[in-house]
């Protein structure tokens, strides 16, 4: 570990997208005008695809090493060296970051290709790709940086690009507002993240090993034990702060509000940034620092509870949404909740596995929805769609596969990864059966809302107006090809992480050097099988309900939405009024405070002031008599004298700077002479 292998090509994985961003950002406008959009596409897609190939090379290089030595590093240059803080710009690759770079460059590359089709009509084509490449660079920096500071640079970089791309169509005020919201909510989380970094560095520095490099933190992590601050263990506090950062970036309760609004951006952006990569940064960070989280059981519990709560909570919201992208957005929040649930029961491998499979099928779903929106001429309301399966066969089939995957149909990727999480939630030492029950409920909800969307969009009668219906078309090749590849991935990606009863997970084995030996399930294999059947059964129930309601129309959705007086439905439909609550408490609270201040000012302070003024006035009137006769005479006398003196002294204030200077200099000279002659 101390003498890792210097591998020079790693830097190009990260820097190539930056070069692409620079080329498009600086020359893009000219290129687009002079040469055409194909040049922009080339500069945008080629670096990401080359990065992907290099990532594959890194994977092969790692495979050639022994499992415990799978570790490559590329030190670029020393960045900071201040006091005990030494930070290099260095990229490292271990099994965990390999998974991440493959996801980022692989799926990112596909989405780049897709975007060339989706954004083709846009005037700001080059600006879009400059930001998309910059995003890829920042995300790669985040996952390959070998220390917390470099990770933070990437962390902020992806936030910036996310902001820029959400507000990409900035002519519409709604979009810029959504961008601002994402940026500001993320700031809250980033504040926690920074505090976490400070705390870790401070605590290790106390022990004489101040560092922010992951390997060294891991080596010295045991030193942090026993240190306390405000009566709380430093490890617990630091991990909680970092987790606040994760809730911001990964849209967990209570900082989840920005992600649904982020759907204002172009759909490929939603797929890449707000589904497949950036929002998983929090999960990655928790997994990267798993040694700290495992040492802080309280934090783990918080992570698991927040994850579970988010998963259920946003699944219920997704039931009632009508915007095709909002359903997917809440679904993303929900799936991220599952990942945190896994991390919270110390099953980091399962979290990363779900992260990867989710990246495939959620990207596929978003790109599919983008394809639908493209065909519908920008319409996003599912109530106006329907029957699209004939018009867009490729989109239909790939969407179908992705829906099956996210619903957890056996043999798809989503099944294996979600099942792994649920099994860990049941059997790991940090878990409880309650988490499993809630998790299975969430899985049922997922199946329901996804099939609801599926049936609403692709089956039944087309509810669009005749103009839109006439223009329905399958999307161009550049958009269909990524869809097909992602759909294949949505199935095949799961097979590398088979559960133990089907022969054991290659994926868990691959991550073992990072997360330590996989704590093998305590429960007997039979129990695992039973639980699996139950969760599939619940998902099937969700599917069946959606089938009855939205395909056969035998069951009116109103029968459910009117349950409890329609209260629940309204709650779901309005997203639990969270936005309104935040508006009320944080924005309104500030205003209320100002009003209270104003009220106190007007009635209490003013009363005191008025009262004292009146009292004073009375005393003054009394005084006045005395003043007029005794004091005035005295005052006039003094004033006259002063005026005369002033008139004489005025001539000293000539406004002549030289005169002043002479006075100063004279005084200094005097002081010097006194000091020299009479003092020493």
């Amino acid at each position, binding site marked *: 570990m101390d003498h890792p292998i210097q591998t020079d090509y790693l830097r190009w994985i990260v820097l190539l997208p930056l070069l692409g961003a620079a080329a498009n950002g600086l020359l893009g406008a000219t290129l687009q005008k002079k040469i055409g959009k194909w040049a922009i596409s080339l500069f945008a897609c080629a670096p990401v695809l080359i990065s992907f190939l290099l990532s594959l090379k890194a994977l092969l290089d790692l495979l050639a090493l022994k499992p415990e030595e799978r570790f490559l590093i590329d030190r670029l240059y020393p960045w900071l060296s201040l006091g005990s803080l030494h930070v290099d710009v260095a990229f490292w690759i271990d099994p965990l970051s390999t998974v991440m770079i493959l996801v980022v460059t692989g799926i990112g590359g596909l989405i780049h290709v897709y975007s060339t089709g989706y954004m083709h009509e846009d005037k700001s084509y080059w600006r879009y790709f400059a930001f998309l490449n910059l995003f890829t660079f920042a995300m790669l920096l985040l996952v390959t940086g070998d220390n917390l500071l470099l990770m933070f640079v990437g962390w902020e970089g992806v936030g910036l690009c996310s902001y820029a791309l959400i507000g990409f169509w900035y002519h519409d005020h709604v979009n810029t507002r959504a961008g601002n919201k994402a940026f500001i909510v993320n700031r809250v989380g980033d504040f926690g993240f920074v505090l976490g970094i400070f705390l870790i560095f401070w605590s290790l520095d106390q022990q004489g090993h101040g560092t922010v490099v992951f390997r060294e933190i891991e080596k010295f992590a045991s030193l942090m034990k026993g240190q306390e601050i405000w009566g709380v263990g430093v490890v617990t506090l630091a991990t909680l702060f970092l987790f606040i950062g994760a809730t911001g970036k990964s849209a967990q309760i209570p900082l989840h509000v920005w992600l649904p609004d982020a759907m204002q951006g172009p759909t490929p952006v939603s797929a890449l940034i707000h589904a497949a990569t950036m929002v998983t940064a929090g999960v990655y960070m928790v997994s990267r620092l798993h040694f700290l989280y495992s040492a802080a059981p309280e934090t783990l519990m918080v992570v698991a509870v927040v994850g579970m709560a988010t998963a259920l909570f946003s699944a219920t919201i997704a039931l009632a949404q009508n915007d095709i992208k909002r359903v997917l957005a809440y679904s993303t929040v929900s799936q991220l909740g599952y990942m945190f649930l896994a991390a919270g029961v110390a099953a980091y491998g399962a979290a990363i596995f779900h992260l990867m499979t989710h990246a495939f099928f959620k990207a596929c779903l978003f790109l599919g929805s983008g394809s639908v929106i493209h065909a519908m001429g920008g319409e996003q309301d599912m109530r106006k769609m329907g029957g699209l399966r004939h018009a867009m066969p490729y989109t239909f089939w790939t969407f179908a596969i992705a829906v099956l995957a996210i619903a957890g149909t056996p043999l798809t990727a989503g099944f294996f990864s979600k099942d792994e999480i649920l099994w860990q939630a049941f059997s790991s030492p940090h878990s409880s059966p309650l988490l499993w029950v809630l998790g299975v409920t969430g899985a049922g909800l997922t199946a329901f809302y996804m099939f609801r969307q599926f049936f609403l969009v692709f089956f039944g009668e087309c509810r669009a107006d005749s103009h839109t219906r006439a223009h329905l078309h399958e999307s161009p090749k550049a958009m269909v090809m990524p869809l097909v590849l992602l759909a294949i991935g949505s199935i095949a990606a799961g097979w590398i992480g088979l559960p133990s009863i089907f022969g054991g997970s290659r994926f868990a084995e691959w991550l073992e050097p990072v997360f330590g030996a996989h704590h093998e399930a305590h429960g007997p294999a039979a129990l695992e099988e039973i639980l699996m059947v139950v969760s599939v059964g619940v998902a099937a129930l969700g599917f069946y309900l959606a089938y009855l309601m939205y395909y056969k129309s035998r069951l009116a959705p109103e029968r459910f939405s009117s349950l409890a007086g329609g209260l629940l439905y309204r709650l779901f439909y309005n997203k639990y009024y969270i936005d309104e609550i935040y508006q009320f408490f944080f924005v309104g609270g500030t205003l209320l405070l100002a009003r209270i201040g104003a009220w106190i000012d007007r009635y209490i302070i003013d009363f005191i002031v008025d009262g004292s003024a009146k009292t004073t006035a009375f005393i003054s009137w009394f005084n006045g008599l005395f003043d007029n006769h005794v004091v005035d005479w005295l005052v006039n006398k003094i004033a006259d004298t002063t005026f005369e003196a002033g008139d004489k002294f005025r001539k000293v*204030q*000539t*406004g*002549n*700077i*030289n005169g002043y*200077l*002479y006075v100063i*200099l004279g005084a200094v000279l005097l002081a010097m002479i006194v000091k020299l002659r009479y003092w020493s």
Partner: protein
Amino acid sequence: MVVGLTHYLVVGAILFTLGLYSVLTRRNAISILMGVELILNGANINYVAFSHFSSGNVEGQIYAVFVIMLAAAEAAIGLAIVLAIFQIFHTIDVAAAETLKE
């Protein structure tokens, strides 16, 4: 004779006095600013000389750098003011710009 601390201090003192003379006698705002620069340079020589001969560490030089930084700020602002005065009064004789006293 070895060049020692006092030599540098005397050079600094002479620069300082020449600057002072400039400031005292000139009527031209820019010339006054030049005098101020001489004064600052004289003081800076002292800082660096003490840092070299007396303390043996670089803290004196830090102060010198701060002085240079402030001199740059002062020159920028001072000359901007001079230009502004020139635009209003069409002269930069400081005696002409004494209207504030009335």
